[in-house]
């Protein structure tokens, strides 16, 4: 009761004094916070209504106008370099680890790429000379097609054919397809999924990646690791000579199965017992067992008999439908089970007289001495009682059994109760109780 009052007072004290206590923050706190807020708001491109966004739009608009003006002056070379660069990166990378390109373009990115499009659309017809105009258009559509071609996994399509097939009619269509600047080393996989992102933007362009799980990077070619399953919408924001465009792709991280199993019986004796493996895996459809003795199984819950006692490491690999797998190993699965002690349930004493009880497996072929079969026993205490509860025999040595005599007299045939306790070599304890029937010839 008193304790309770104490508790309450202690809690009350803190609640009353500190529950609404005010503490003055450091003076720099406010400005730091506001700077962070500003940064976050800038990084969040949610085109609702904040000033920085308007500013960005204004800059973009200015950039557009500037670009239009610039294209009227002869600077094709710069354009070609800009357009060519991604093509080179493509070719270099297609054969390497970027084999799993999957369509990046999607509706939202199309919407957001409006600005660069408008530049292109204005820019192409505005080119005065047809020959060079076609050239620049062709080059840009090469890179455009290359992207879409890749997206459809038609990587083998030679660039020249695209070049040839790009008549003036297709020019505008190609340009209006948002060509994603995102390349990834893969779009789906198992956690932890490491994705190498590659931006095909020009060297001078600034990139900002959002990985869809809260992470972001301003590297051009970042590497990101997804630990948790889910669908992540990745966006890449490229600011190229003042024009902002956004590309996106989706990374799917599949759920990972869980491999889990138990061994039964718990204290199995090898090689006597057949072992059952109880499967508690989750989210998996395929299983592969390695029992540690070079025998494997693909059953859900296999049973296995070992040929001899030993230290086995049992492994289960559980694989989900999409191919994600998890594995678990139980090391020294039977380390506690090599040790055992078992008693017979009947014996026939030697009628010619007491033997003293010492035995060896060979000397006691006729089962004239009551003794256990055992392995790994270090401590041992056996006691045998008559039906009336009289202690008839006691032994602290596992090699010393009962010969069926009590005080020099052979005991009556019948049931005797025994109790044994002790320790195994691995410090595991055992206690067993049972009965044994004394028979007579």
């Amino acid at each position, binding site marked *: 009761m008193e304790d309770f009052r*104490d508790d309450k007072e202690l809690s009350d004290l803190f609640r009353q004094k*500190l529950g609404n206590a005010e503490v003055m923050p450091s003076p720099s*706190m406010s400005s730091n916070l506001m700077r962070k807020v500003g940064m976050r708001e800038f990084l969040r491109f949610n085109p609702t209504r904040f000033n920085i966004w308007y500013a960005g739009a204004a800059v973009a608009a200015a950039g557009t106008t500037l670009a239009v003006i610039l294209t009227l002056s002869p600077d094709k070379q710069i354009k070609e370099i800009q357009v060519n660069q991604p093509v080179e990166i493509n070719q270099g990378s297609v054969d390497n680890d970027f084999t799993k390109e999957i369509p990046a373009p999607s509706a939202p990115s199309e919407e957001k790429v409006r600005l660069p499009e408008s530049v292109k659309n204005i820019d192409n017809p505005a080119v005065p000379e047809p020959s060079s105009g076609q050239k620049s258009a062709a080059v840009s559509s090469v890179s455009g097609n290359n992207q879409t071609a890749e997206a459809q996994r038609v990587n083998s399509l030679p660039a020249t054919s695209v070049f040839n097939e790009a008549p003036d009619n297709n020019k505008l269509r190609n340009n209006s397809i948002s060509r994603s600047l995102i390349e990834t080393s893969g779009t789906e996989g198992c956690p932890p999924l490491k994705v190498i992102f590659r931006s095909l933007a020009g060297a001078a362009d600034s990139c900002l990646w959002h990985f869809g799980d809260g992470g972001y990077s301003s590297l051009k070619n970042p590497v990101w690791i997804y630990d948790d399953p889910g669908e992540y919408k990745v966006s890449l924001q490229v600011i190229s000579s003042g024009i902002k465009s956004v590309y996106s792709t989706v990374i799917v991280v599949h759920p990972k199965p869980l491999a889990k199993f138990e061994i039964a019986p718990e204290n199995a004796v090898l090689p006597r017992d057949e072992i059952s493996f109880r499967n508690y895996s989750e989210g998996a459809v395929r299983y592969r067992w390695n029992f540690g003795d070079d025998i494997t199984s693909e059953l859900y819950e296999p049973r296995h008999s070992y040929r001899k006692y030993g230290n086995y490491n049992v492994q289960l690999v559980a694989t989900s439908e999409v191919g994600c797998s998890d594995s678990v190993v139980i090391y020294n699965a039977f380390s506690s089970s090599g040790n055992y002690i078992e008693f017979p349930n009947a014996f026939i004493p030697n009628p010619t007289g007491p033997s003293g009880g010492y035995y060896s497996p060979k000397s006691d072929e006729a089962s004239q001495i009551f003794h256990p079969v055992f392995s790994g026993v270090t401590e041992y205490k056996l006691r045998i009682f008559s039906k009336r509860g009289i202690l008839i025999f006691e032994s602290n040595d596992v090699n010393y059994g009962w010969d069926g005599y009590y005080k020099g007299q052979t005991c009556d045939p019948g049931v005797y109760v025994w109790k044994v306790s002790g320790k195994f070599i691995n410090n595991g304890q055992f206690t067993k109780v049972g009965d044994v029937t004394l028979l007579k010839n």
Partner: protein
Amino acid sequence: MMSDQQIIEGCAKHQRKAQQLLYDKYSRFLLGVCLRYASDKAEAEDILQDSFLKIFFNIKDYSGTGSFIGWLRKVAVNTAITHYHKNLKFRYHIEIEEFVSVETGISSFEEDFFTSDELFMVLNDLPAGYRLVFNLYAVEGYKHKEIAEMLGIDTNTSKSQYSRAKAVLRGKLEKLRTLKSNYSAGNV
């Protein structure tokens, strides 16, 4: 002076002025909350900053019903919990000496004997896990079951953490009281 309602609306529109006003109005109160969950003021200010970021960017989640200050407090408490989990691996658990159970000679703790600063100090010295549970239970008034859910621990863990926290706090307050009485007695 803007009302809370106006400030909330302003913040929802990401108005810098409204955010500043919200900060000016509630930062002291929220730092008081954060400081209870931290081991020093710097850590408390970290939590406070994260709390404000959450508040500013999620202010639309505030339903408008219920007390605004209660919502703010909740955000801060949740941030503190996140912070605790994030830093869990860097923390040591309790020193052995803390386990020495305290025979309570104290019958009561007079409210005015200790200053808020002293109480904060005692709380800041507590191991992080104890502090978290103690705050949630004793000050915030959550039930052990709720705390267990929030922290992803067992209800009994919450209970035992709480009672150990109390034991440690009681010991520290006792020590502080002796110190203080000696000091004032010596001075008079």
